[in-house]
């Protein structure tokens, strides 16, 4: 730091910001991380599952010291109609394989830990401070403005989350459109660890992840999720913002109905609501990718829309972490040259292009459009339930062969539609 100028100011102490701060401080840069919450994580939410691979690469064995909740060893996808459900269960040792495993997390604890790693490495964390604006001179970002205070830096990393007003101010991004974001709501419901383990068939330390499609979003694009934490369950819904209200149900009403569904109610029975939160999720995929860098500025994580939202499942934290890492690498390289102009920071985009981030985002790029197809959220859950109903409901009437009954149900959706969706879906997934 020369005089009062930091090498790098990072706005936001979510996973993307803290990782960038951690790596830059480790490399000996003078780093300031500014977080508007009273502590890192205080304002943050997530569904609950962190895929470990990208953090494992930076902090090997992190799960032993980080406040993770449970290691996911069991995955269930459930299709819901109003009164019935069909589930697919996957349990495998493979899920627990190191570097491929995933953990449930609660952000208030997890983000604090990650931010403390950055502080230990030498970054300065100023929490309880909101950055209101950027200092921009001749098109180059040279610092931040927080209240009355101005603070300068050679480069600013915007890690301020999905609704990054600062990226807009830097001219990197347009205002969010309703169809580019989904809304997520979540309750944390407390239950004793042994009750959770009995209910979900888990050993201590093991966790379950469940996704729900269909009636929980009233047939709209989106889905429900349930993650087991140590002593609580994270239960919530994610759905496209432009879809809200079209079914006449408010967001809290939808969550309430989801909780009352016969497939969900027994899982949370006797639990105590300890936290309620709502948050936006970027879901435009590649189509909403902003300009990722400019003179003296980089955008990472949710602020850059680096989230894979496959409708019923959201993945953002591992991308946030990897993009924070790429930004740190680009800044370190820029510092060596003493040049923070856009052409030099373009290295950040190269790193992303050659990483799993762009590979996976590209793979899923048609997914948002595919998801716009409401059949997946309305007709297919009904189809699955109808087929299973015919299989299992015995009332003394003559049984029809499965092929025939299944076909008659499929005809309701339209065989051509079904094949089309299966083909498109198969290609994307």
């Amino acid at each position, binding site marked *: 730091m020369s005089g009062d100028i930091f090498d790098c100011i990072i706005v936001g102490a979510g996973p993307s910001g803290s990782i960038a701060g951690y790596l830059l401080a480790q490399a000996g840069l003078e780093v300031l991380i500014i977080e508007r919450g009273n502590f890192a994580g205080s304002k943050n939410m997530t569904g609950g599952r962190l895929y470990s691979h990208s953090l494992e690469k930076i902090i090997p064995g992190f799960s032993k010291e980080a406040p993770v909740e449970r290691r996911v060893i069991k995955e269930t996808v459930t299709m819901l109609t109003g009164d019935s459900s069909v589930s697919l269960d996957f349990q495998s040792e493979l899920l627990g394989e190191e570097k491929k495993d995933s953990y449930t997390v609660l952000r208030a604890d997890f983000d604090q830990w990650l931010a403390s790693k950055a502080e230990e490495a030498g970054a300065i964390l100023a929490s309880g*401070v909101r950055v209101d604006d950027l200092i921009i001179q001749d098109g180059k970002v040279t610092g931040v403005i927080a209240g009355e*205070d101005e*603070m300068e830096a050679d480069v600013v990393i915007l890690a301020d989350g999905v609704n990054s007003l600062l990226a807009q101010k830097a001219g990197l991004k347009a205002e969010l459109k309703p169809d580019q974001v989904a809304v997520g709501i979540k309750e944390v419901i407390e239950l004793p660890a042994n009750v959770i383990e009995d209910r979900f068939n888990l050993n201590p330390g093991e966790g379950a992840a469940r996704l729900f499609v269909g009636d929980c979003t009233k047939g709209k694009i989106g889905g429900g999720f349930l993650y087991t934490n140590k002593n609580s369950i994270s239960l919530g819904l994610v759905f496209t913002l432009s879809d809200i209200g079209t079914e006449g149900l408010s967001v809290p009403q939808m969550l309430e109905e989801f909780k009352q569904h016969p497939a969900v109610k027994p899982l949370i029975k006797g639990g105590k609501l300890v936290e309620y939160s709502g948050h936006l999720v970027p879901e435009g995929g590649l189509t909403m990718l902003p300009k990722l860098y400019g003179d003296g500025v980089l955008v990472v994580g949710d602020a850059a829309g680096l989230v894979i939202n496959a409708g019923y499942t959201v993945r953002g934290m591992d991308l946030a972490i990897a993009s924070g890492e790429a930004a740190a690498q680009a800044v370190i390289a820029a510092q060596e040259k003493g040049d923070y102009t856009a052409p030099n920071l373009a290295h950040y985009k190269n790193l992303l292009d050659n990483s799993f981030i762009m590979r996976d985002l590209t793979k899923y790029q048609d997914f948002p459009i595919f998801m716009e197809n409401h059949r997946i959220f309305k007709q297919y859950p009904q189809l699955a339930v109808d087929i299973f109903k015919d299989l299992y409901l015995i009332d003394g009437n003559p049984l029809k062969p499965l092929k025939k009954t299944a076909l008659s149900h499929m005809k309701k959706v339209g065989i051509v539609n079904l094949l089309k969706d299966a083909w498109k879906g198969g290609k994307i997934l």
Partner: protein
Amino acid sequence: MKKIVACYKWVVDEADIRVEGKARSLNFDRIKYKISEYDRNAIEVGASFNEKQGCQFLAVTCGANVEASLKDVLSRGPESIAYVNDGALEETDSSVTSKVLAGIIKKIGEVDLVICGEGSSDGYSQQVGPRLAALLGYASVTFVNKLELTEDGIRAERKLEDGVEVVELTGPAVVTVLPDINKPRIPSLKQILAAKKKTSEKLELAAIGLDSLALKQKTLDVSGTVMERKNIQINSGGMTIEEAAQKLVQQLKADGSLA
């Protein structure tokens, strides 16, 4: 130049405490700590004397787990902090707290004015200030909602139940302040950064002439109080509003809620 000390308590954020079950036990599982609310007013008083009149201004605290508070308090204006952090102070009451604080303040030496909040956000026993005054041999002025420094003392307005009392005194004093004396600051970015460069002095109990064993106290039980609802329905059965209002007034009188 006057030397001013503000005392503060690092308390559990009451928003995080949960009262559980019939036994009304208190659950402290997911708690965070904070600088006690009225103590923030006390710190703000000192900070403004420091900024506007150039007084020397220090913060003082003690407890079993207060180191997490240092950065926070230093961003609110004090030039430095002196504190005792000792496991023996886990469950202190105001008698022990005031002994420790008095010890620290004597160690600092030549303090002209000590400012405390009127009471803490957790216990609100309102005892630490007056006890501290007694232990230090200082004047004690409570319920203060306006404070000025004079040549050789202070001028304070005390907000009492039946009026405002203005007191002037010479010599050192311990003042306890009410929340309406000022609006505590939310530390700015520069104040937070400046705090990182300030000094803090950790003192051992022995260094202030106290013995940790002699101070050790044990709290046997703490539980929450809950006001039971009486579930009285005033206007059941098609009663008119006038009748219901009269019945309500009678009920409130019977309860002693209306004189």
